């Protein structure tokens, strides 16, 4: 019973985000008849899943107390490298595997920089992202972008299982796996412990360095995979294909209730956050505002939406009530 209560308390911000998403959806439906159509919902799911994939590794990294700014460049890498490899005649499945593995290795480099050399995650991942960008420029963009996106990528990205897009199904499966990993495995516990207080984690026998390294590696692999799917859907791979997903990946997890300082949040929250963000992105342009007003409206909706739907005191302990929980039994 108390366990259920604790779980509910923990997911209150996620519920808030879900409420936010629901409100957006209702507003969209009321405003525009086609918003709730099957076609549109499918589209929204696909776009949300892109954010979801991009934010998968990001969520793990942030939960472990880090941040990964190399995500957008690894997304571009996934798309472009796949096209280049396949144009070179490589087996498509193998090519996807190669892309994901290289993404993983790049993530590992991030992890080593952060854990072994103690470089701040923001700087390390920014720098590594720049190197990936340089590599992509060296590959010869025109050669890469000129090629058709390999059928394996476009097939997965555009396929459907009955009425549901394959991408959404894959996303659901991945989300379940990640949820189980975070909630039910030793690794998941270790990620939370590392992110909340790495001194406690170390003294409790957790190899925080390895935990962090794994989160960055997963982030690299997930980003490269996201790049494969996204380029498959867009039907083109190009240098800046990953750019929209930098802030989207972080915003999704923060809206979903995770703390940017680590230790708190769930991938389920990120999923909800990605959906809310995608709804917002699809809804606002339908009001035909001029670009300036659209930008202002976007910001206002996020402010008001997050303020209204989430409980306060999830911040950094500035609020008067931030420590209330701690005081309550310390008589």
């Amino acid at each position, binding site marked *: 019973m*108390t*366990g259920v*209560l*604790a779980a509910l308390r923990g997911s209150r911000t996620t519920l808030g985000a879900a409420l936010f998403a629901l409100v957006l959806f209702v507003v969209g439906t009321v405003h525009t008849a086609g918003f709730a159509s099957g076609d549109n919902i499918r589209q929204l799911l696909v776009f949300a899943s892109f954010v979801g994939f991009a934010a998968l590794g990001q969520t793990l990294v942030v939960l472990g107390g880090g941040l990964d700014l190399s995500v957008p460049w690894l997304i571009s890498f996934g798309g472009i490298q796949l096209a280049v490899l396949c144009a070179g005649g490589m087996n498509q499945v193998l090519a996807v595997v190669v892309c994901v593995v290289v993404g993983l290795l790049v993530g590992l480099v991030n992890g080593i920089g952060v854990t072994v050399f103690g470089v701040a995650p923001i700087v390390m991942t920014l720098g590594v992202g720049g190197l990936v960008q340089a590599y992509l420029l060296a590959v010869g963009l025109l050669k890469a972008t000129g090629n058709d996106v390999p059928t394996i990528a476009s097939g997965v990205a555009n396929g459907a299982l009955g009425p549901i897009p394959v991408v959404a199904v894959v996303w659901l499966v991945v989300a379940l796996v990640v949820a*189980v990993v975070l909630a*039910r*495995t*030793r690794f998941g*516990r*270790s990620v*939370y*412990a590392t992110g*909340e*207080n790495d*001194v*406690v*984690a*170390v*003294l*409790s*026998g*957790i*190899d925080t360095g390895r935990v962090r390294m794994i989160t960055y590696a997963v982030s690299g692999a997930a980003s490269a995979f996201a790049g494969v799917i996204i380029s498959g859907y867009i039907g083109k791979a190009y240098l800046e294909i990953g750019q929209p997903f930098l802030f989207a990946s972080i915003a999704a997890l923060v809206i979903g209730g995770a703390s940017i300082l680590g*230790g*708190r949040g769930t991938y389920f929250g990120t999923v909800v956050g990605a959906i809310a963000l995608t709804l917002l992105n699809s809804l606002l342009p339908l009001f035909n505002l001029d670009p300036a007003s659209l930008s202002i409206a976007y910001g206002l909706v996020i402010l008001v939406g997050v303020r209204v739907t989430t409980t306060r005191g999830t911040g950094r302990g500035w609020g008067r009530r931030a420590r*209330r*929980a*701690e*005081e*309550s*039994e*310390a*008589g």
Partner: protein
Amino acid sequence: MTIIDGAGTGAGAGRGPAAGPAAGPARELVVTGLEKAYGRNQVLRGVDLTARFGTVHALLGENGAGKSTLIKILGGVTRQDAGTVSLGGRKLPPGGVTAAQRAGVRVVFQELSSIANLSVAENLLYRAEPHRAGVVAGRRLQRRAAELLARFGMDRLDPGRRVADLDLAERQLLEVVKALAAEPRVLVLDEATSALSSADSSWVLDQGRQAAARGCAVLLITHRLGEVRDVADRLTVLRSGTTVLVGRPDEFDDDTMITEMLGRRVERLFPPRTPPGEDVVVAVRGGRVGERLGPLDLEVRAGEIAGLGGLQGQGQREVLRALAGATRWTGGEVTVRGREHHPATPAEAIRAGITYVPEDRQREGLLLTRSVLVNSSLSSLFSLVRRGLLDRRREAQRSRAVAGDTGLPEGRLHAPVSMLSGGNQQKVVLARALYREPTVLLLHDCTRGVDVGTKADIFALVAGLAAKGTGVVFYSSDLSELAHFCDRVYVMAEGRVRGRLDAAGGELSEESILRLALTHRADDTGEEAPAP
């Protein structure tokens, strides 16, 4: 002892017979009918307390009795739901910490309030900095801080040092000086001696007495009854948010006080000793850590409770940390159950059966937002993995079992540990250490800031573990615990073991520990003590 009496009403409000109800009502801190609830948790249920200016008033109670909340209300950190606090006849104004400070209340908080990234001087004169047009006059600040430190006999604190570089005891001392410097009308010392060696504790108590002599009402919160008897004029005991006992310390014996605090009798604080076995579980030969610790010889037998004694900061922490794998041995030979043991990480030490209870439970011991269950199983997750997943039923069973062993309240298994009282938080850290029966248990001041009842629980628990063959290394800043709980105490000074006192040989007593620690210091060559 001179009594300074600003109001000149004459009546000596000092220690002893003068502490009777002679002076007018205006010369008192009066708390009446204080109530406070956090959510559904009613913490204070009508607390009454009267502390006269010029006296030391002890406030006793077990962890969770409501002392901290009462203090927070006094200090303006929280506001009461009902009841009043008046100071010299005037009601304490609302308006938070600032208003309380302006009214003359200074609190030395248990969790310490010094700012790690500011210097000693900057902390001492926080919000009272000498300045010109808003810019702090650095030299004057340093000078005034140095003067203050000298005035209260604490000039071993360097005003220029960053507080982050101080050890816990030094921070505690800084905190006391800071409160004294404000020349308060009410000085609250919340467990201000719990992290201190006996010498430093005496200093704090002495300062408390002197402040009282200057006309201040000193509220002393402590779990050490000896301190109460030494310095307090009167005492109030709280239990479950109400006042249950008021009087002079000499009116009650220890048992009465403890019984009133706990609402039950504690048969004995220290469990009877059981003879340790013969097998050596840990042996250190010529161990070194860094440049300052060692060479060091140490031996712990199965079932033995081996104490690390001496003044604070003589390398005890480093020994425990090195054994726990948190720092590396840089030399010497360490064996666990006869096997070479040089852990590079705490993980390796834990796998070898060594578990460590760190000193600062809030910062190093607990994931504060996580549940008791998660915290208690944190070091033993690998033993709970079944087919790649954590076996949560097993985890819950095991956690419930350890929680029961440690005396944690039932039904709080899923509560975030930040919701628990200090004593219960300490039990959670212990529960983690006991999750799988350890070969060696390293305890770093695990009874600090813990009430008598919880202390007795902890001692019984550790003794029980020792009886089953665990070797325990026990460090405490409280000499009496070392003297009465340990089978053997290694007295350390300046990073080396200066002597060994065996209980079996009748050599072990507070006095013998202190003598060994001090006599060494008396003929020391003036080297600096190892930095913690």
